[in-house]
């Protein structure tokens, strides 16, 4: 019960922070840090897959409502929510994940978290940015945007683990 409440609270905080602060961060021309993915990243390991998918859907839809992009964030976040369980299996050490732990630096270390975040963010940005342009003419400039934004989002998310969302 406590965990559900905490995740709902995180959902709200992450969205507000994204819309009010991050969307106004100006870094030359190409990049916006999408920190709202933290919500998906930090969901407990044992969350049923269908809940992960539905919350990914809700998260994307809310972002779409705020940025007027109808469907684009939704498609990207649902994709990420679908990939996440498989990625977690892939990244697991031989013993798997221990009970009562969460996917955080605190439990699994900096390198693990960086890898995990980088892959999720990259997949998300790849989907989001190409859906946004929806043409292959600008393939490489979009790829550049994806890569730069991935670096930016990932570092923001990882840093946030040390400052904002510590507990």
């Amino acid at each position, binding site marked *: 019960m406590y965990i559900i409440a905490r995740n709902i609270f995180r959902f709200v905080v992450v969205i507000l922070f994204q819309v009010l602060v991050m969307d106004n961060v100006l870094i030359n*021309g190409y990049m916006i840090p999408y920190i709202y993915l933290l919500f998906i990243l930090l969901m407990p390991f044992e969350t049923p897959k269908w809940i992960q998918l*539905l919350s990914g859907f809700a998260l994307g839809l809310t972002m779409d409502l*705020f940025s*007027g992009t109808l*469907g684009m964030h939704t498609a990207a976040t*649902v994709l990420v929510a*679908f990939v996440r369980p498989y990625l977690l299996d892939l990244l697991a050490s031989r013993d798997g994940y221990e009970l009562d732990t969460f996917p955080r630096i605190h439990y699994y270390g900096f390198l693990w978290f960086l890898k995990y975040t980088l892959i999720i963010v990259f997949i998300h940005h790849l989907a989001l940015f190409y859906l*946004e342009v929806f043409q292959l003419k600008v393939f490489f400039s979009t790829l550049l945007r994806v890569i730069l934004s991935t670096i930016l989002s990932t570092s923001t998310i990882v840093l946030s683990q040390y400052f904002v969302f510590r507990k």
Partner: protein
Amino acid sequence: MRTLLRFFQKYSNLLLFLLLEIIAVTLIVQGSSYQRSRLIGLNRQVSGYIYSRVDGAREYFSLKEVNEQLVEENMELRNRLDRVSTLLDSASVVNELVGEHRYYYVQSRIVKNSIYKQYNYLTLNKGKKQGVFRNMGVVSDQGLVGIVLETSANFATVIPIINRDFRLSAKIKSNNYAGILQWDGLSPRFAILTEIPFHVDLSEGDTILTSGFSSIFPEGIEVGKIESFSLEKGNFYDIRVELFADFQRLYHVNVIRNYRQEEQLNLENQTR
């Protein structure tokens, strides 16, 4: 039957995933710019309120910059006034000034600005109560900004030049050829002017103005200058236009109200 059930059970997550993705893609494909604007209208009430609060702080921090811009504009206006008052002696100008009071400007401030997306929108702190309505033009003292899309009582959303849905008729100052101004989604500093035929002489640095063919903008509002051009698709130029309006620093804008817009549109609709 049982195998079917087992199939659903086994792949339930995959099916849910596909279902949600289909919904999302349908939203993208079906969502016309009109629906997008309705959607924005929906959350404008909430976000407009929040943003105008947040904006209080931003306003304070950018006071110095705004001050400088105002001083510049002041100078410009004073210069223009000087020019006009000397001209006023000749009677021909008076006619123009008195007879054609078609446009009225509503001062406004941007409370939300996005520039790094493909479909950018601005939110202004003036709405229906202050006389801002759909399809009014928006300019800054630097140049053209965009067109009002939706309004509520106290807020308005603007579709700026740097939105992939933006289209406006614009012309080249030196030879009056008109084309369509749109955005390629690459940089908030540049837009593209298309449909200028290949035989037109162009030179870099030429000014681009509004053509006045729509009822939204008066003729001759400055948009930008030609940065480069190329003949890619055979018969028409692709002209890269450096925009005068700096969307990264945009803050104070004016909404243009055309008193005769309705009359003009009505007539045009009758003729069609």
